[in-house]
């Protein structure tokens, strides 16, 4: 283990180097460009054994990954925003073919208007594609999560997206600890695909037509296997904690003991909110934080058990569903808790679209609001667009 200074992008590229995948096919896009660029330097300098495929688009990037993964390779790529959108149809193909490809992703808003900064619209738009998804809170976690995600993906044959917040994490240098190459290699082990197109002794057909007669059964089996990801993730995260000393639960609780209200948030904002919680706790206020790290599959029972304890919860959404009903995390959180006997009053705060800065004071204001909801038992405003001009 050694201490280094790295940006989120450098941390992800370094994790990819230590994973040393068989194939990386990628097309650069701001703000994930550096991940691809740094990794291609590793390739050029002979520091990895990876076959790097320079393609002409993200659609081709993920298509090449699908081909390489069907051939039995350990495969990764990196993208952001419009790039993920262009990969969209191939996301389903990778997941449906049970190919454990891992994407190092940087969360950026989708056009229009054009913007290169952070929000979670890109990955939220792909939440039904059958990929595991982890949101990271800092550079350390970005590095660690790629390694844990790869292990989980290969154990379950479910592809994975690991994401950081554009610029806030991708371009911010932080201090982190990295493992030795041999430790990473021992942890992930040799990849043994269940099937390989290059296994000429056992020829198979890949990606065939599958109509009314069996498609539904195959989809049902995929959904069933997806539900096993959470256990596989827990095991990988615990094994990784033994190796590194850093444990990342699917759902993280921070100072929830005795808390009456909590914020439920993901990404770097959840890390920032911890500082606010500390501050308010010093004032004797009963506030806590729950961090949504794993978003797919949804850790339903953990979220229900955790959020069920509070009088009021504020969900923080860094994207909107365009359903005129707030953000996706809000909708799903309310859905999960609908049948719970004890459940909090839940409000939504859509924030930070297109990289709008979120200050400690903004987060403190959310705590003020939900304390009032908890005290009065009434929701005055269900959905708030936080930090946008012309709104309170």
């Amino acid at each position, binding site marked *: 283990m050694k201490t280094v200074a790295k940006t989120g992008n450098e941390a992800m590229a370094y994790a990819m180097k230590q994973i040393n995948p068989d194939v990386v096919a990628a097309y650069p896009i701001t703000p994930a460009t550096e991940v691809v660029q740094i990794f291609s330097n590793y390739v050029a300098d002979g520091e990895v054994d990876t076959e790097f495929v320079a393609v002409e688009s993200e659609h081709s990037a993920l298509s090449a990954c699908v081909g390489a993964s069907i051939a039995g390779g350990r495969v990764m790529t990196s993208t952001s925003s419009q790039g993920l959108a262009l990969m969209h149809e191939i996301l389903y193909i990778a997941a449906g073919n049970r190919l454990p490809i891992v994407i190092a992703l940087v969360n950026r808003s989708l056009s229009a208007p054009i913007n290169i900064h952070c929000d979670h619209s890109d990955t939220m738009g792909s939440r039904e594609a059958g990929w595991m998804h982890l949101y990271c809170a800092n550079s350390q976690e970005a590095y660690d999560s790629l390694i844990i995600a790869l292990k989980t993906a290969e154990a379950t044959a479910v592809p994975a997206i690991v994401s950081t917040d554009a610029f*806030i994490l991708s*371009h911010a240098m932080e201090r982190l600890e990295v493992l030795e190459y041999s430790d990473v290699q021992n942890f992930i082990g040799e990849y043994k695909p269940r099937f390989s197109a290059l296994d000429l002794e056992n020829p198979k057909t890949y990606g065939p037509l599958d109509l009314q007669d069996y498609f539904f059964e195959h989809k049902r089996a995929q959904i069933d296997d997806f539900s096993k990801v959470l256990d596989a993730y827990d095991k990988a995260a615990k094994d990784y904690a033994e190796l590194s000393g850093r444990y990342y639960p699917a759902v993280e609780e921070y100072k929830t003991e005795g808390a009456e209200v909590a914020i439920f948030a993901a990404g770097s904002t959840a890390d*920032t909110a911890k500082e606010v919680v500390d501050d308010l706790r010093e004032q004797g206020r009963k506030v806590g934080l729950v961090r949504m790290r794993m978003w797919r599959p949804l850790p339903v029972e953990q979220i229900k058990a955790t959020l069920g304890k509070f009088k009021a919860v504020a969900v923080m959404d860094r994207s909107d569903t365009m359903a005129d009903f707030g953000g996706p995390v809000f909708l799903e959180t309310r859905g999960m808790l609908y049948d719970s006997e004890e459940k909090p009053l839940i409000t939504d705060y859509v924030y930070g679209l297109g990289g709008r800065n979120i200050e400690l004071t903004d987060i403190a204001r959310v705590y003020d609001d939900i304390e009032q909801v908890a005290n009065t038992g009434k929701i005055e405003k269900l959905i708030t667009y936080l930090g946008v001009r012309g709104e309170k």
Partner: protein
Amino acid sequence: MQQYFEVRWHGRGGQGAKTAALLFGEAAMETGKYIQAFPEYGPERTGAPVKAYNRLSDGPIRIHTQVTDPDVVVVLDASLLESINVTEGLKKGGAILVNTQEKAEVIKKKLGVTDAKVAVVDATKIAVEILKRNVPNTVMLGAMVKVTGALEWDSALASIEAKLSEKFRGRKEIIEGNVKAIKKAYDEVEVA
């Protein structure tokens, strides 16, 4: 609340404000600090005003917000004083360091600063003299370390030298020139 030491760098695109922030961050890490170093991204054009930031602490840093109340402001290009409010949010008792030919007293009066330290160094002159190029960013690190007292000088210098060696792989004259220039800025910085 955790204590942070925060820095805002002002420069123009191409002058290396971001590189200076990264080098300062890494140097601080070598002395045992937890660090952040990040640029403010916008449309990037050579010559346009740019900002970069540092956040230092003795413990892990969890906040990921912009720096709004810096302890120290560093201005790599004195012409920015005309167009940008460089003292915005500067903490009481903090410091502002400007690359200029002017005396510290003159800059202090110009900025109207009363409750923070004002320091000046002619980093451009030092850079042109020693490095033969107008690249004031690394030069300013020397003055920065002295004015703020935030880092231990020897280990900071050693770290900067190591990073430059990595970056300029064996181009000795550049590495040695930078170190010489940094030391000169350390010696010549003037405080009012």
